[in-house]
């Protein structure tokens, strides 16, 4: 039964998110959240806060066979050659792709190194709005690519930061131009760690006057190992 007292209601939501409501009580709370947007918003806030507790755990690598099994169970493991063995369009595509590959291999001495880390930078509090994408190649070079168009006042600069070790504080990776990709060499990035923080802040023209960000965070994200 859903209590009438607001404090008791809030407590019930906290218990539900924590997984302490079972059986019929759990079903009743879920029906309540479906019809009461305020209650649903409270549940959402609790869930978002609990994400922090999950991220305290050291990441563990998932065995490759688990991904294979997930692909099999979702019907995504069928080899491409079985899907269209006799298909003319398929073979035309394959031939064209091979031709392009041969050309690229002939003209380019070495292809780009595979990506080892990626980061999606999002506006603070806007989890569903990616603004920039970072990829770090096996060589350690970092590429920063805009996903949205953004403009700022001319007396402001956008500065790129990283935080690998909180004890050492943030490190500037330089100013960037909104809307333009940039590649930063490994020598300036250093070794990237899983979970390493990257962010873009809005600073006075020419960059932060201090050795740390002074302006608002525009986009922020953490490195995920691929």
């Amino acid at each position, binding site marked *: 039964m859903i209590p009438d007292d607001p404090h008791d209601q809030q407590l019930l939501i906290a218990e539900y998110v924590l997984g302490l409501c079972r059986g019929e009580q759990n079903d009743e709370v879920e029906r309540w959240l479906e019809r009461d947007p305020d209650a649903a918003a409270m549940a959402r806030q609790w869930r978002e806060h609990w*994400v922090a507790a*999950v991220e305290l755990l050291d990441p563990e690598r998932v065995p490759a066979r688990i991904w294979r099994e997930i692909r099999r169970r979702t019907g995504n493991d069928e080899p491409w050659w079985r899907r269209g063995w006799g298909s003319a369009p398929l073979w035309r595509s394959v031939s064209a792709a091979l031709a392009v590959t041969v050309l690229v291999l002939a003209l380019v001495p070495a292809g780009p190194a595979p990506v080892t880390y990626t980061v999606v930078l*999002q506006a603070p509090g806007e989890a569903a709005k990616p603004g920039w994408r970072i990829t770090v190649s096996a060589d350690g070079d970092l590429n920063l690519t805009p996903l949205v168009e953004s403009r700022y006042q001319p007396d402001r600069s956008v500065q790129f*930061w990283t935080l690998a070790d909180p004890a050492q504080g943030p490190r500037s990776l330089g100013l960037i131009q909104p809307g333009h990709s940039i590649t930063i060499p490994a020598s300036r990035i250093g070794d990237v760690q899983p979970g390493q923080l990257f962010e873009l802040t809005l600073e006075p023209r020419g960059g932060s006057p201090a050795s740390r960000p002074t302006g608002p*965070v525009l986009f922020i994200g953490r490195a995920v190992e691929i």
Partner: protein
Amino acid sequence: MFALARRLTGEHGLAEEALQDTFVQVWTQSHRFKPQRGSARAWLYSLLRNRIISLHRQAHGHRFEPLPDQDWPDPGPSPEQCSYAESQRLAMIECLRRLQGDRRSPILMAFYHGLSYEQIADRLAVPLGTIKSRIRAGLSRLQECLRL
């Protein structure tokens, strides 16, 4: 997610099974994810926890890994505190750290191990009523601390 699954199940095979089930569920029920209702990460974690809690009803006697309870990191000042999302994250860690141990432990047992009130009371050898009081008092303090 795998680390959480291992904590919740205390067993490698069950963790793998739960992880598989969760990603299959994501694939088949992706239409149920609504960005306005929260982040994808929170959705994924809640799917995984719900799946494992339901597995708990079917199995008993797991060995659980220790809780990250004894040495909570001090979030400390850092540039990400400028960010709303990051300050939310740090706030939760700080608020958990401030909780008394006898309130924090059962809350974390529920979160990381997916245990019910009865299971927590049994494991801590504390009366059920006492555990309910401690958890509810702890959740109230967390709520105040998080300003929810």
